[in-house]
């Protein structure tokens, strides 16, 4: 695993925008092809195997949480616990998730967290870095490859999902609508769903209607929302005024409610309890003072690094935010690889249950935020 400094494509902005990636320069610099990461095939095999292993162990953890009544540890509201359990017992279909890993190419990848509910940075991982590979790398290295079959697997999984509801059922896509990045990711999910044959429709989350007499959520045309793909976290849905209606409606939501079990940082100590000393896990606990050495404090429900605090022996690094009211977990501090002044983490995707590709994020801080730069990769 090496970092290479490269000259960006002369038309990289036009190339990004031609595939709907309009937020390439949000907060100054987001897409950064002035450098890239080069892996060996064996390193990619290691990442792929670790991702498959972590995906399987997370499903074990979901079963454990439901079977042993551990949802209180995750601060899942009591009114929601049976709904979440029923969703898990029914194995309501899931489309995707992204593991954030620390990996230096030598030691086994370590799980930092699992973005199981509303993972983003998908368009750039699936589409933008694929085009970069064709245009920037393959002319000089025709056999170069990339760990990125996201696009193919998304379409394939959408085809499998679509046969589980009746033909012509519209699939509604929603997010808050005021985040350019969320919109880009959601529009891409609509694109692949359309390619798989689905009829798709966007509705902003604020515009979702509730008709009590029909017992149904409806869109702007008063059409029942039967299948809803959301980039809006489950814990927000549950807390909103319409949240309780989800418990009584027929709506199918992607990601399903059982993903609340895995997108919660309480997953980390439960995984460590179930699989102590696992090579892809870091020690983690629900209580402070249980971790030897440097440690990281994470809210149960934070997003994009908010309110994460790293406690080194001689320094504390804290990210701001307004999360943490539900509780926190404590995790051993991973060694995040550093190249020059930049720390790099790897987002490793599962589509369905299969490993499907990676995206790299660089930041001057050890804490990866939504502003951390996306850097492409290839392997030989």
């Amino acid at each position, binding site marked *: 695993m090496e970092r290479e400094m490269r000259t960006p494509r002369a038309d990289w902005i036009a190339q990004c925008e031609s*595939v*709907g990636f309009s937020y390439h320069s949000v907060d100054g610099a987001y897409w950064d092809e002035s450098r890239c990461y080069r892996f060996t*095939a064996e390193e990619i095999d290691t990442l792929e195997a670790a991702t498959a292993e972590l995906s399987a162990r997370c499903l074990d953890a979901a079963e454990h949480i439901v079977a042993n009544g551990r949802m209180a540890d995750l601060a899942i509201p009591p009114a929601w616990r049976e709904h979440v359990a029923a969703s898990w017992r029914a194995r309501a279909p899931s489309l995707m998730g*992204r593991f954030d890993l620390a990996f230096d190419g030598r030691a086994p990848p370590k799980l930092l967290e699992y973005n199981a*509910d*509303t*993972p*983003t940075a998908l*368009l750039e991982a*699936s*589409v933008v870095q*694929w085009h970069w*590979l064709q245009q920037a790398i393959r002319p000089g290295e025709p056999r170069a*490859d*990339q760990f*990125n*079959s996201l*696009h*193919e697997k998304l379409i394939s999984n959408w085809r499998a999902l679509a046969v589980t509801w009746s033909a012509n059922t519209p699939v509604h896509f929603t*997010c*808050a*609508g005021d*985040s350019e990045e969320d*919109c880009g*990711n*959601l*529009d891409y999910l*609509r*694109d692949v769903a*359309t390619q798989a044959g689905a009829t798709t429709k*966007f*509705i*902003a989350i*604020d*515009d979702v*209607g*509730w*008709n*009590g*007499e029909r017992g149904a959520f409806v*869109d*702007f*045309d*008063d059409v029942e929302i039967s299948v809803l793909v959301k*980039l*809006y*976290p489950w814990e*927000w*849905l549950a*807390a*909103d*005024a*319409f*949240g309780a*209606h989800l418990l009584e409606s027929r709506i199918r939501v992607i990601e399903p409610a059982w993903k609340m079990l895995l997108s919660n940082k309480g997953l980390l100590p439960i995984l460590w309890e179930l699989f102590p000393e696992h090579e892809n896990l870091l020690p983690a606990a629900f209580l402070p003072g249980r971790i030897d050495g440097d440690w990281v404090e994470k809210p149960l429900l934070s*997003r*994009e690094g908010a309110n994460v605090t790293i406690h080194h022996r001689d320094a504390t690094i804290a990210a701001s935010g*307004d999360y943490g009211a539900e509780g926190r977990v404590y995790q051993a501090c991973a060694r995040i690889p550093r190249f020059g002044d930049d720390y790099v983490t790897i987002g490793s995707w599962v589509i369905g249950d299969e490993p499907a*590709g990676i995206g790299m994020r660089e930041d001057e801080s050890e804490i990866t935020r939504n502003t951390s730069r996306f850097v492409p990769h290839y*392997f030989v």
Partner: protein
Amino acid sequence: MRNRTRKSSARVTLVLLGAAAIAGCGDSGTPAPEHRDVYASKEDCLADWRDPKECEEGPAQNSGGRRSSYWYGPSYSTGHSWGGGYHAGAPRPGSAALGTHSTTRGGFGGSGHAHASGGS
């Protein structure tokens, strides 16, 4: 590099993104009519709306061991004249409707207003 299974997509094509073909994120369109009159029977609904296509049977309900269902007329907006000057609210004078039901909006999104993104 020895022969290996390819790990990147063979082709990446888009049908919506990058084109002006979709009403994308942030463009929900125009709100639909929000009211529907409710009837005890199909006949009552037809008495108001005349066209069978305008009357839809609602889901069956169990009450005190008895199974019953309601019928819904078409949707219409507050203050909007429809099918002969009907308006939202309580049953109109002369109407056979039991009442008027509404769709409410704005019950999701509140938690998101405090945050820049729902992604992770």
